[in-house]
């Protein structure tokens, strides 16, 4: 027994028009200051104006939103009493919006208490709309929430199926202004969701097709979107890819690249998509022997061929090479050293990296779970850019 949850998804050019028909009184827009500056918040507000819905903007969400920021947002919600919460932005504002919504509805809970084993009883005060402005996180359709515990320098995964959005508006026009590096980082996040959603222990028939579709779209359209941000077809297909991947992994699970990426990102403050994208090929090389058919299917779906032989494991390993080639094509690093992290800083953090990754929620569903020592080796190989051979 398992579940598949999804918001109503409005997608394609002009999807933001769906807000014109929204019924309600007051909307709290949870976002960041940059999106206010770029005018994207004003766009959303103008649609809500057409619907006759008052708006209040909470634009204090930082990258990797902290528990403290969420608490401030909850105070704003309690004062404003919205009947809609709108999460607008990348993963950080959307995740913050989910947490603010839950705690607005359930003031008795702490952020860390939002867990999948309880009944929340949401939608008594408000409903949630998510509007992604990047193409990668998938947070518009997932129920997971990633918050940062700033005291412990640790990312904290919380969430409950109930806190999936009521509506996700996936409008590619909002992504046209993304710079190439952000396009690349977020696109690799989508790719990692798709690969891990397809190969993790919790994948299902319901999620497999979404992951395959997303992988094909990323390989075809990410280089175009990075090369020419005004290529609206590439933007639209990448936006769809991110949402498909979000549905795929959000109803299955992420895996080892996320576990390693979470910890590296939390300690060295590297964008999430860049870290998981770096680790993805190394984790494929490590895990391919445990699920060669699954990885080979992905490789074949994007036309990756092996020079080393036609066996499933060889084809699976070719996927790692194809992903590294894709990273190079979009000017994305393929090793931790290429991130500019000095070896001394990396080695002094290595114990915490291994410890946190070993115990990360995403590690539980790896199709080949590493031992403690293997995980340390994986970090070292990823630092040096050495393909994994163990």
């Amino acid at each position, binding site marked *: 027994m*398992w579940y598949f949850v999804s918001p109503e998804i409005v997608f394609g050019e002009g999807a933001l028009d769906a807000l014109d028909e929204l019924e309600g009184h007051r909307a709290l827009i949870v976002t960041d200051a940059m999106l206010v500056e770029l005018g994207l918040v004003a766009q959303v507000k103008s649609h809500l104006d057409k619907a006759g819905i008052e708006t209040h903007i909470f634009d204090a969400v930082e990258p990797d939103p902290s528990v403290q920021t969420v608490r401030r947002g909850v105070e704003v919600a309690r004062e404003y009493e919205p009947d809609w919460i709108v999460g607008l932005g990348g993963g950080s504002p959307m995740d913050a919006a989910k947490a603010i919504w839950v705690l607005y509805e359930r003031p008795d809970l702490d952020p860390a208490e939002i867990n999948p*084993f309880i009944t929340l009883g949401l939608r008594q005060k408000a409903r949630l709309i998510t509007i992604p402005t990047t193409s990668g996180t998938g947070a518009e359709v997932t129920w997971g929430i990633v918050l940062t515990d700033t005291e412990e320098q640790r990312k904290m995964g919380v969430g409950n199926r109930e806190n999936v959005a009521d509506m996700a508006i996936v409008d590619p026009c909002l992504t046209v202004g993304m710079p190439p590096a952000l396009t690349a980082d977020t696109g690799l996040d989508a790719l990692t969701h798709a690969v891990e959603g397809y190969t993790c222990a919790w994948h299902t028939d319901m999620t497999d097709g979404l992951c395959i579709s997303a992988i094909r779209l990323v390989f075809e359209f990410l280089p175009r979107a990075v090369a020419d941000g005004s290529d609206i077809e590439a933007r639209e297909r990448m936006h769809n890819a991110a949402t498909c991947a979000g549905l795929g992994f959000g109803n299955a699970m992420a895996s080892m690249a996320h576990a390693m990426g979470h910890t590296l990102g939390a300690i060295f403050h590297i964008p999430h998509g860049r870290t998981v994208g770096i680790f993805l090929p190394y984790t494929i090389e490590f895990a391919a022997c445990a699920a060669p058919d699954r990885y080979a299917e992905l490789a074949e779906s994007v036309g990756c061929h092996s020079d080393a032989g036609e066996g499933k494991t060889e084809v699976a390993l070719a996927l790692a090479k194809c992903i590294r080639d894709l990273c190079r094509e979009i000017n994305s690093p393929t090793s931790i050293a290429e991130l500019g992290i000095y070896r001394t800083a990396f080695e002094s953090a290595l114990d915490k990296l291994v410890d946190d990754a070993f*115990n990360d*929620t995403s*590690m539980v569903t790896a199709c080949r779970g590493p*031992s403690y020592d293997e995980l340390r080796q994986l970090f070292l190989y990823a630092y040096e850019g050495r393909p994994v051979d163990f």
Partner: protein
Amino acid sequence: MALKFPSDEWIKALSSQLNASEAYEKSAKDWEGDFIFIVEPDDAYANTDYLYLGLYHGKSPDAAMIDSEDAREAEFVLRAPYTNWRKVIEGEMDPIQGMMTRKLKVQGNMMKIMRYPKAAKEIVSCCALVPTDFGN
């Protein structure tokens, strides 16, 4: 020789497996909190049984079959029908998914459990190492 589940011998064997597991030790090195597992009757099993598993800092100092839920103090109680326990032990049901779908019901501090998913997985891995007799 296979050990009957549930039984005092079985839970003690699980405790021994945990004490020999480096992966469990690493994933639960800060864990403090004992469990009582309650095996509830269903079509395949007629009794209610109680298994106590002491867990402290990556080791299992104590384990025993007990007479009732109140016979020992424990921070966590995990209850499920016999058939669901069997599925977990045989690897057919992921324990985290089992808790999320309410097939396994947990009482205790969920925030704490959420921080140690790897430890939960390692306990199940150790269950699989105990030769188990399900009576059929």
